[in-house]
């Protein structure tokens, strides 16, 4: 029901993701049993997780056998882009409690804009205006208390 031809579909079919899931499911089954299953009248803390993780094991095992199709091609430059985007977002999370919101937010916006192939000029303009707008919305209008951070120069 997609526009894939049978060949393309077969090319994108893979088993590693279901296999990974299957491993996770097995770990969850073991961990659930260790939690204690109780009995039918008094199910223990592990009973429900066991049912759910057996569900994971069965369905993923089925997918390991039949394979699953990736809906689209992925090329390496895509993954590199996404990696950089995730890294810039992780940087934001690390810096936020240290130096407050404005600088990390501006950096993250610049990074994402550049990853979209926008010019430095537009990226930095968006970063500055966007950060000011977010500061106004979140801090001044919604009253969210964002960390100022011990390293920030006197806060915002």
């Amino acid at each position, binding site marked *: *029901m*997609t*526009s894939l031809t049978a060949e393309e579909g077969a090319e*994108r079919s*893979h088993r590693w*993701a*279901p296999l990974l*899931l299957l491993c996770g499911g097995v770990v*969850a089954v073991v*961990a659930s049993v260790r*939690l*204690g299953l109780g*009995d*039918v*009248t008094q*199910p*223990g*803390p*592990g009973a*429900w*997780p066991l049912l*759910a993780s057996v*569900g*994971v094991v069965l*369905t*993923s095992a*089925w*997918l390991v056998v*039949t394979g699953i199709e990736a*809906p*689209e091609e*992925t090329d390496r430059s*895509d*993954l590199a*882009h*996404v990696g950089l985007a*995730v890294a810039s*977002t992780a940087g*934001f*999370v690390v810096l*936020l409690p240290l130096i407050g*919101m404005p600088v990390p*937010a501006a950096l*993250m*916006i610049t990074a*994402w*804009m550049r990853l*979209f*192939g926008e010019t430095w000029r*537009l990226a930095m303009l*968006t*970063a500055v205006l*966007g*950060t000011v707008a*977010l500061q106004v919305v*979140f801090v001044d209008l*919604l*009253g*969210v208390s*964002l960390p100022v951070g011990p390293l920030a120069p006197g806060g915002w």
Partner: protein
Amino acid sequence: MDFSGILVGVETTLTPSNLLFVLIGVLVGMVIGVIPGLGPTATIALLLPLTYGLDPATAVIMLAGIYYGSMYGGTITSVLLHLPGEAASVVTTFDGYQMAKQGRAGPALGIAAIGSFIGGLASVAGLVLVAPLMAGFALRFGPPEFTVLALLGIVLAAYLASRRFAAALAMAACGLVLATVGQDSIEGSPRFTFGSLKLLNGLDFVAVAMGLFGLGELLHTLDRSRRGTGEVIPVGHVMPSRDELRQCRGPIARGSVIGFVLGLLPGGGGMVASLSSYAVEKRRSRTPERFGKGAIEGVAGPETANNAGSQSSFIPLLTLGLPPNPVLALILGALLIQGITPGPRLIEDHPDIFWGVIASMLVGNVILLALNLPLVRVFIRILDIRVAILVALAVVVTMLGVFSINNSIFDLWVVLAFGLVGYGMRKVGFEPGPLVLAFVLGALLEPAARQSLLLSGGDLTVFVTRPISGSMLALAALVAIVSVVAARRRRALLADLPVDESEPSAVEDKEEAR
């Protein structure tokens, strides 16, 4: 017929602040409907934290507005760019875009707006009639009935709204496992916390949803150009001619009914409703060969149905506490955060929420009709905004929004982790919808299942032998059979639809996340 309920709703809606939030909701919905790639699920996930400080009724009124507002907005890009703004508008690309190429973009948009409006009103009327009956019936539900219904709901939703049933079930099972992270609700012992105190309260629902739907979707926009060609087809006059209106009377009437009924079922809502309506209109037509080549009925029916379906899908949530699709799962999450568990008692305990949402849909649809007939050109301008700016700002909004809930940096790492997982899932062929649906329901399901066993003294047949749960199961089996047959027909229809090879993304999106 007792109209005091709907009067409470009208009263709730007509307060200045709620009117403002209906307007905000439908405006946001329209805008994100227009932007390809950013659907109602992602947007509602992004805005969840902002509803935290609102009154519960106001919060749900706004989120509902976003959902059905996006049903209107999604039409615009489907017709003008051959790019569905959100999943439920995919069907509209078939005939809407062809109409636009023939210089009839205006009437295509016009009839979609009129159909959506009528479907919306019909759905509200249905809600007023059916919802209280269903809530009354559901009052007799105990934990066994809830357990059976919720599990069946998850399974059916996984079947109807996904490309691969097994993959959707796998994700639903993962959702159930993730929901058990934290303290056991009955005995209090820690589960899957890896010794971390921060995990003792479980994974925060908003952080998980915003990671999978919000950040995951934003990361996905980086490697996929869904920006279209940028060539927007001129619109011209919007009002359909008298002949066209006459042609669409039947499709709009049938679309209202199909949309309303399918919205009630698990896995229902806008997307399934619009596909089914298209199938019905094509089958009923004396000239089915016109479909796919600019038949106005192929726009009118589905657009009516998707709006009617998006609204009636509130019934299962408001009366049974069961969200039939991921968007409603997010709205359930928003209510749970506010300390309100929707269910059969909602109509008694919180009539302002129950009736307020329903009445707000009346107001919302009137606003949307105005936005879509005279003001539609303003929204078309949105297509000029660069995607990069929207996405970059949305990332910061996501992170700040999640932080604002618990003032917790740990939650930000949860978002990042689930964002990466959400992105990966889309790449390898899993969908996040069933996971989030099961994750939300898991927190309610486990206590219900355990209470059922306590009640019955360990007798597992409690789930099938009680008169209500037994007949629910029988009814559900019937619904399942009917839905499976209908889904097969839909899939068959999808298989022989005209596919423009230059637009592979539009075809793949048909079956994508709802």
